[in-house]
């Protein structure tokens, strides 16, 4: 019974971690102020 409880705790922690990380997601960012280019850039 104690082994089952330990396994359930491990599983719940894994689910909680993954759900939290994916819910937070990546930062949205902002639109770049740089224009679409109409001249040839010198370097990348």
């Amino acid at each position: 019974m104690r082994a089952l409880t330990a396994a359930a705790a491990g599983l719940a922690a894994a689910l909680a971690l993954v759900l939290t990380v994916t819910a937070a997601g990546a930062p949205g960012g902002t639109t770049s102020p740089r224009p679409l280019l109409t001249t040839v850039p010198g370097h990348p």
Partner: protein
Amino acid sequence: MRRRASLVLLAFAVFFTALSPLMRWYAFPRLAKIPPGQYQDMVLEARPATLIDYGTMKARKVPKVTIVQTLKGDVAASDRIERTAGRDVVVWDTLSYVAGPDGKMVSQVPERYIFDAHSQEPVHATGESVDGDRVRREGIEYKWPFLTEKRDYTYFDAQTRSSAPIHYRGTRTFHGLEVYYFEQTIPWTRVPLPKKMPVKGITPRAVEKTGTTRWYSTRRMFWVEPVTGAPVNGEEIHKEELRGGDLLPGGGKVTAFAGHVKMRDDYVRSTVALVTSQRTLVLLLTSYLPWGFLALGAALLVLSLHLEARGRRPAAPGPDPEPALSPA
């Protein structure tokens, strides 16, 4: 004490073992995404090339034609579309600007490309366009999906405003990276005149009135890094012609632009460097962490069982108790 330690180890074993598939099949599709605010430029060159001289309506050889491609993510537009699409969406405004040897504009094609941030599937929303014309894309454009497969894909061609298969032609090595090589041939097709013509005062409508038409054919090649789905090299054997009408009487035709377009070397190097670093991040989610967690979980389980077994072993018999002293 040993039994308590074995239970803690068991909990960690289950934790890491469960993380392995969760990371690969739940977290990866939700975390590996094209950022909505991406900005990127690319320079391609055709050396030499053929260009039309609009003064004489004859083709002439030029030493170089440059194509500057820029893509810019519109974050506000992607937020707006996400609200109704119910998934993460990227909106790219792109411009393919073709410059002659003197740097003057030969043609330019702006596009708005809307797609799913993870799967690269097109998302059909207001604003999806090529050179101001509304389009409905099928398939991919510019980038392949993460974990690209060895198969044909459908690729959107902006000039013809239509999609056609792009064929997987084998695995190659490019600058030390394993890449998939794809090729697409667009046969001669009549295409619209660009909205912005290179000669002042001439509009596409004025050219259309003369009956002259624009035709295009290309063979495009991509070397795609399969983990990220990012092309690390691209080439195009591009041909454009103006045909017939009052400008070219008697069914005549003239090359408007022809050349073998290749990515400039410095952009190839920077793209390879960028893709190599992104590849490591994707591999972390799809391979390194899932397999590492699985191995760690298995090792912890073995250790836990070992401790549990030792905890259950009966204690070794001790020395015989001394015989009780009998009263004298």
